């Protein structure tokens, strides 16, 4: 079923009674609004020329260009000729519904100073190096400012770094202006930008990065950054003080990303100072961190590659920190709590101890583009995302990126309409999903009273809301004698466009995590489709072969449900195999491995580089807590 058909069906459905999202801004109501919610796709992780590392890679496009691109316009990108004309252009096949420019907060001022003649500091050693040896500066600045535990402002920033802090005001306002300019406040509701930034802590090259997204145009005077606030705890407290509790109408949420490169530090099960977590700590974190970016340009973070779940080998990086990436003999395996599944499981265990789950995270995906190109996720048109190690600043490399990176994914959101309030509320309640790129639409409901034949109902969503909870929600205790919750998953393939049809679906799985003897356990259940459907892809032409499904739907009851064990369930929707971006690039260059790999295209003939992938979508989980039964009893 296409998205349009789905929307048409949805509009005919009886309206389910749900609380209206509070409106915090002045705007026209959207023409297209439905109480059973619509799917919207966007990118919540976008860097532009305001980020130091993007400039080092030759990116010149700013926030306005990023939003132009997200709306479907063609934009030019590096490399540029001597006259400043871009030598390449890019354009989305389909515009996005929403996007957020999230430039690094840390060097906003420094980047501005180094690029603006006349500003004090422009002629400093650091700025001179940045202009004459941009890629070297990329390494040195990242390596001395962001990859350390105790970052210090550069000397050209003046006393207490005031000069750079002051200079950061300009780009921060530019980000806000661009978001406002491109926000469609008309009833057409075509596009929604969010004001945001990235807090980019990287102690010892272990990524503890978080994207910060604001609900509306009311934002703090300046973004928090790792130089001044060096821990997640400090970031959350600052956001509470300067936004949520400031009484100015500010609202915010935080999206951690790249657990795969965090060295386990992003989701520690203790405080930053090593003290045990308290209930208050868990509540503070849970109030802000509601979503996790499960996949992006720098790899997939869903689960650790394992024999028991072969699909977890999807887009795994061969190293565990970005520093290691430059030194192959140092490549290592990520430690515990480096993947979403481990983190979600740890959250269940902590909930048993603290009464609050600090890691109650929905799942979305994004690009982390450093080309100011939100939503540029097509495998067949990947030109790299300029996130380091492979630069297209001065020339287009034969292979557009390091083979271990990928085009990144998209965030999907179920919201009543395409407005900031509606989308933000959807993200906050975790009614969101991530895709590895294709616009797979997926609905996921759970409940003890969910009808077994829900898939044949014409009002799937309305009944799902009425008898259960959507993705991101908490199961209520059973009202009747059902011993186990039932789940319903409906998914539609990406229909694609014109010359780029989407790939059929292969199957749907439900991943269950639960606590047993104080430890997290996991189990993957096949609930729809067929893993052995024989689908394949012709590597020479990248044409898919074999049968698949346009839509899949199934209900499933947990056969091993233990009401006394905290648990969560999320759905994974998997496409038939398709060509990975490296295969597309190698085909485009007619690489013949029997003749030996050409320079720069060694990955084309490297056995460890996958030739195919299975694109996918991950829903946010639905949680079960034994407290739910107690809560109902006490009521």
């Amino acid at each position: 079923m296409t998205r349009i058909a789905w929307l048409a069906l949805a509009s005919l459905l009886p309206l389910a009674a749900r609380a209206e999202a509070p409106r915090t801004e002045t705007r026209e109501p959207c023409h297209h609004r439905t109480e059973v919610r619509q799917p919207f796709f966007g990118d919540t992780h976008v860097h532009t020329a305001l980020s130091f590392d993007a400039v080092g890679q030759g990116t010149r496009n700013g926030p306005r260009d990023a939003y132009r691109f997200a709306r479907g316009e063609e934009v030019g990108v590096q490399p540029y000729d001597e006259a400043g004309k871009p030598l390449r252009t890019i354009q989305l096949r389909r515009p996005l519904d929403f996007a957020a420019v999230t430039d690094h907060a840390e060097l906003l001022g420094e980047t501005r100073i180094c690029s603006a003649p006349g500003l004090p500091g422009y002629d400093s050693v650091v700025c001179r190096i940045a202009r004459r040896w941009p890629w070297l500066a990329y390494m040195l600045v990242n390596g001395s400012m962001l990859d350390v535990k105790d970052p210090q402002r550069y000397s050209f920033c003046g006393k207490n770094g005031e000069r750079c802090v002051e200079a950061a005001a300009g780009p921060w306002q530019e980000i806000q202006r661009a978001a406002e300019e491109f926000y469609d406040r008309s009833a057409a509701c075509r596009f929604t930008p969010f004001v945001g930034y990235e807090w980019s802590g990287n102690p010892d090259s272990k990524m503890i990065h978080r994207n910060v997204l604001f609900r509306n145009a009311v934002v703090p005077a300046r973004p928090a950054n790792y130089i001044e606030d060096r821990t997640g705890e400090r970031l959350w407290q600052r956001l509470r003080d300067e936004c949520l509790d400031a009484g100015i109408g500010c609202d915010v949420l935080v999206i951690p990303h790249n657990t795969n490169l965090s060295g386990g530090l992003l989701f520690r099960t203790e405080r930053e100072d090593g003290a045990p977590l308290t209930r208050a700590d868990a509540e503070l974190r849970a109030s802000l961190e509601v979503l996790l970016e499960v996949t992006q340009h720098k790899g997939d973070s869903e689960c650790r590659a394992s024999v028991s779940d072969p699909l977890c080998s999807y887009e795994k990086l061969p190293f565990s920190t970005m520093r290691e990436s430059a030194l192959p003999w140092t490549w290592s395996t990520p430690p515990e709590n480096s993947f979403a599944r481990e983190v979600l499981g740890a959250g269940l265990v902590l909930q048993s101890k603290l009464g609050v789950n600090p890691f109650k995270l929905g799942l979305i995906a994004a690009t982390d583009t450093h080309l100011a190109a939100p939503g540029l996720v097509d495998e067949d048109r990947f030109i790299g995302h300029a996130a380091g190690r492979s630069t297209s600043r001065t020339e287009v490399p034969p292979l557009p990126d390091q083979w271990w990176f990928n085009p990144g994914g998209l965030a999907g959101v179920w919201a009543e309409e395409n407005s900031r309030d509606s989308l933000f509320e959807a993200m906050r309640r975790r009614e969101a999903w991530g895709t590895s790129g294709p616009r797979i639409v997926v609905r996921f409901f759970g409940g003890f009273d969910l009808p077994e034949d829900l898939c044949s109902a014409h009002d799937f969503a309305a009944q799902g809301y009425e008898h259960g909870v959507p993705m991101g929600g908490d199961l209520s205790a059973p009202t009747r004698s059902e011993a186990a919750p039932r789940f319903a998953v409906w998914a539609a393939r990406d229909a694609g466009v014109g010359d780029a049809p989407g790939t059929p679906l292969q199957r749907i799985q439900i991943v269950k995590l639960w606590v047993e003897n104080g430890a997290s356990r996991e189990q993957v259940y096949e609930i729809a489709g067929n893993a052995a459907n024989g689908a394949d892809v012709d590597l020479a032409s990248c044409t898919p072969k074999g049968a698949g499904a346009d839509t899949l739907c199934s209900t499933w009851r947990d056969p091993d449900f233990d009401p006394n064990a905290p648990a969560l369930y999320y759905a994974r929707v998997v496409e038939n195999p398709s060509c990975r971006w490296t295969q597309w690039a190698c085909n485009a260059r007619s690489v013949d491995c029997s003749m030996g790999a050409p320079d720069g295209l060694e990955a084309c003939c490297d056995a460890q580089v996958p030739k195919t992938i299975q694109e996918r979508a991950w829903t946010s989980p639905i949680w079960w807590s034994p407290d739910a039964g107690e809560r109902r009893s006490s009521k």
Partner: protein
Amino acid sequence: MRARIASGDRSAKGLPAMSVRGLRLFLWLVLAVVLPVPIWLLGPGSVPALYLFELGSVATVFGLAEGLRGVVGLTALVFVGQAVVYLALLYGIAAVIARACSRHPWIVFVAAAALIVTASVLPIYHSPYNAHASQVTLLSVYP
């Protein structure tokens, strides 16, 4: 080793007198400044060994100006280290050639001139570290 190059051969070509040591030094400098060598680490690319030394020096200056925090020292070391290894290798090559051509130094001079001219005309260097172009000539490889 210190013997002068044969006077008959020298006078025939009208070249100045030069010891083997001088010839070796001359050749080594030319190779260090002009000959493209692959970047082992923090590449890819092919640049003169002296350029790697330059990058290491820039990283060192950065570290001296702002402190050797994080990987700044390591980055400087990687570049300087590569440069030192290459310079040692090129010194050995220069020594072998100088000795082999000690009776016909004009070969060295002509080859060196050809190398310099070629490198000045053709973009034989490839460096991601240059600000404006990756494929560059000798005239623009050193920013």
